[in-house]
C-alpha cells in the first residue's frame, strides 16, 4: 500500500493543478484530462488499530483523474493521502487503462472489483482487499485495488459475461491488535507466483424488472488467517478459496427486494484444521421501501452456516489463542449465525443534509453495531461530515471483539474539480 516519494509528489502536483485550473468545455476535444478530488481535516476519538490509543486527527487528500483518448481508451487514476497521528498512509487505490472493442469492454491495471447486489453485506464480494486500519467516513474508502485485468462482453443489452484474472495477490490489512494478546506473527506469504493467479467469471443480467448474476471465483481469501507453518512459525497467511455465488435485485411496486448468497470453500487443508477458518455458506435477503417523501428504510436478514465447525473456545492452550484469533478475523464463533441489518436514511433541504442510522445485530451472541452518520453540504465545495460507531457484545463475538473501534468522527472537507484540460 505504501508509495514512495515520487508518488506522493505526483499526488501533490495533481492537487495543485486541479485547484488552479478552471473547468473548460468538453466540446470538440481529442484528448482530455479530467480530475476531481478533495482535501480534508478530521478529528476522531479513536482509531481503527484496535489499540485503545485514543484520539487521532490529521489531514486527508484524494484525487481521481481520467485521461481520455480519441481511440476509446482511457486511463484512470485514484490516489489518496491519509495523515493521521498513527502515521501517514499514501496509496494508489486504482490505476488502470480501459476501453472498448466492439461489444467487449476491457480494463487492465490496479482496480477495485466489487461483486454483489445486497446492501453493504455482500457474500460474493471476495475479490479485492480492504485496509481495515484506515479510518474514513465512508467504509468503501477502505477498499484498494488488486492488479489484473477483466473483460466484460455484452452478449445483449441486458446480458453480459465478465471474466477476470489477477496474476498477483494483495491481502487485506488488519490491525495487529486484532490478534489475541500474547500472539506475535512473522510476515505472511507473498502469493505472487504464476500458479497463484486468481480468476473469476460472472454472468450478469441487468434489464427490465429483474437484475441477477451468477458468479465463480478461484483465488485467495483477502482476509488472512493465523497459520502455523513448519518453515516460518506463526504467520498471517491467505488461504486459497473457491466461491460460487448468485445475487438478484427486483423492484416490486413500492418494495425493492435484494438477495445474495455464496458458498466459500477453503481449498487447502492444514494440519489441525480445527484452528482455521472453515468453508461456509452465507446469504442475505433484504427489502427496502421509501416512506413519505424521502425516508428510505432497508432491512436485511443475514445467515451464515459454517461447515465442519469446531468451537474455538473448546481448544485449550496456545493453540486455542490461534483458533480464537482466526474466529475473530473471519467471524466464525458459531456454527450458525443469524443477524439483521437496518438502515434508515433521509435527506433534507434539497440533499444539503443527509443522515443515516444503520446497524447490525447478530442474534446468537447479541453483538451489535450502531452507526449514525450525517453529511451537511455547507456549499458546493465545503461539507461537514459526522460519524459515530458503537460496537457492543461479548469479547468472544465478532462485533464485541471490535469494541475498540467505537468512536466519534468529524471531518471538514473541501472538494475541488472537476478540472479539465483538453486538446
Amino acid at each position: 500500500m505504501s508509495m514512495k516519494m515520487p508518488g506522493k509528489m505526483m499526488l501533490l502536483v495533481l492537487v495543485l493543478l486541479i485547484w488552479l485550473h478552471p473547468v473548460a468545455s468538453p466540446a470538440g476535444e481529442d484528448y482530455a484530462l479530467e480530475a476531481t478530488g478533495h482535501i480534508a481535516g478530521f478529528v476522531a476519538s479513536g482509531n481503527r488499530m484496535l489499540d485503545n490509543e485514543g484520539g487521532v486527527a490529521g489531514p486527508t487528500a484524494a484525487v481521481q483523474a481520467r485521461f481520455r483518448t480519441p481511440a476509446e481508451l482511457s486511463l484512470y487514476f485514484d490516489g489518496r493521502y491519509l495523515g493521521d497521528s498513527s502515521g501517514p498512509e499514501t496509496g494508489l487505490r486504482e490505476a488502470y487503462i480501459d476501453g472498448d472493442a466492439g461489444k467487449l469492454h476491457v480494463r487492465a491495471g490496479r482496480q477495485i472489483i466489487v461483486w454483489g447486489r445486497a446492501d453493504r453485506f455482500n457474500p460474493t464480494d471476495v475479490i479485492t482487499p480492504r485496509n481495515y486500519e484506515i479510518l474514513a467516513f465512508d467504509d468503501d474508502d477502505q477498499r484498494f485495488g488488486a492488479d489484473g485485468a477483466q473483460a466484460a462482453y455484452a452478449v445483449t443489452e441486458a446480458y453480459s459475461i465478465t471474466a477476470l484474472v489477477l496474476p498477483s495477490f494483495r491481502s487485506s490489512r488488519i490491525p495487529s491488535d486484532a490478534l489475541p494478546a500474547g500472539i506475535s506473527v512473522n510476515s505472511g506469504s507473498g502469493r505472487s507466483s504464476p500458479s497463484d493467479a486468481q480468476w473469476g467469471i460472472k454472468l450478469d443480467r441487468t434489464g427490465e424488472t429483474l437484475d441477477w448474476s451468477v458468479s465463480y471465483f478461484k483465488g485467495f481469501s483477502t482476509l488472512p488467517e493465523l497459520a502455523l507453518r513448519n518453515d516460518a512459525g506463526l504467520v498471517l497467511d491467505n488461504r486459497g478459496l473457491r466461491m460460487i455465488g448468485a445475487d438478484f435485485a427486483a423492484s416490486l411496486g413500492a418494495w425493492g427486494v435484494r438477495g445474495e448468497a455464496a458458498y466459500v470453500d477453503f481449498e487447502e487443508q492444514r494440519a489441525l484444521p480445527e484452528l482455521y477458518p472453515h468453508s461456509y455458506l452465507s446469504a442475505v435477503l433484504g427489502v427496502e421501501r421509501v416512506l413519505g417523501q424521502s425516508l428510505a428504510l432497508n432491512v436485511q436478514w443475514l445467515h451464515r452456516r459454517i461447515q465442519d465447525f469446531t468451537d474455538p473456545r473448546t481448544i485449550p492452550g496456545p493453540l486455542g489463542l490461534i483458533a480464537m484469533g482466526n474466529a475473530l478475523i473471519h467471524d466464525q464463533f458459531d456454527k450458525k449465525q443469524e443477524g439483521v441489518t437496518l438502515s434508515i436514511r433521509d435527506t433534507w433541504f434539497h440533499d444539503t443534509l443527509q443522515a443515516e442510522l444503520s446497524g447490525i445485530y447478530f442474534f446468537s451472541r447479541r453483538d451489535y453495531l450502531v452507526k449514525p452518520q450525517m453529511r451537511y453540504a455547507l456549499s458546493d465545495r465545503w461539507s461537514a461530515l459526522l460519524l459515530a460507531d458503537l460496537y457492543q457484545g461479548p469479547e468472544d463475538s465478532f462485533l464485541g471483539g471490535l469494541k475498540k473501534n467505537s468512536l466519534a468522527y468529524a471531518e471538514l472537507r473541501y472538494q475541488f474539480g472537476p478540472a479539465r484540460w483538453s486538446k
Partner: protein
Amino acid sequence: MKRIIVTFKHIGLVFSSLLFAAIPAAVSANQFFAEELVQKSADAGKVAAWSARIVMRLTPKSGSERVRESVISNKLQPGGTDVQRLVRFIAPADIHGTNILIHEHGGGDDDIWIYLPSMKKVRRLLANNRKDSFMGTDFTYTDITTPKVREYVHTLLRQEEVNGSSCYVIESVPKTEKTGRDTGYAKTVNWIRADNYVRVKAELYDLSGGLSKAMQVFSLKEADQQKGKWLMEKVLMQNLQSGHSTLLEFHDIRTDKELGERLFAPNRLDKEQ
C-alpha cells in the same frame, strides 16, 4: 401553407372542445379529447435521439445558489414509444461520476438504475420512487420523465394565452390512489400550447390538495420540424411552499449525434463512455 393547416387544426380542436363543454352528457368526450391533447404533448417531446449539457441552478429562498451540471442523452427505445434516458453528473465534485439510467415504460413501472462511483456498483432504484427529488432539485422523477398519460383522468378546463401563445388548460387527476402516492401529486394543471402541443406551464398540487409547485418553460428549441418535435431550453420549477426553485438550462442540444443502443444498456452504466 403550414400556417393554414395549423389554423384549420385549431378550429377543429376549439370547435370540438366547445361542443364537448356544451353537452353535459359528453363529459367523457371532453376527457377523451383532453387525453388526446396530453398524449400529443407527451409525443411532442419524444425526439428520436438527442443529447445536451444541463446546468441546474438550485436557489433557496435565502442563501446562495448551488449549481449542478450533467450531460443527458435520450433515445426512443426500439418500438419508438418509450424513452430511455441517461444522465451523467459532472459537477459538483461530490456527485461527479454518478450516472442515472431510466428506461421508461408507458404501460408500467419504469426501470431506474444508478451508478455511484464510491460504491463501484450499479444499483436498481425503486420503481415507485417517482415522487423523490431528482438529485436534490425541485424536480421529481415524475417531472423529468414522460407523463404516463393513461394513469390520469384529463379534463379540458379552458383556453388562455401564456406569453402570447394560445394554450389549452388541462387538469390531470390520477385515476388511482397508488398513482397519486407514487407521484406525490393529487393533480396537475397543465398549459399546453395549441400550436405545437408543448407543455409550457404547470401547477402541481400535493396530496393534501394544496398548490405546491409551479413549472414554467421559458425557451424552446424545435428539434424536428417535419415531425413537430420540441425540446425545452430553459425551464423553472418553483416550490411555492418553501420558496426554493430550480432552473434547468439545456446547452449544446444535439439532435444530429448518433447515440448507440449500448449507451443505454444498464450493464454499461459503470463503464467509462
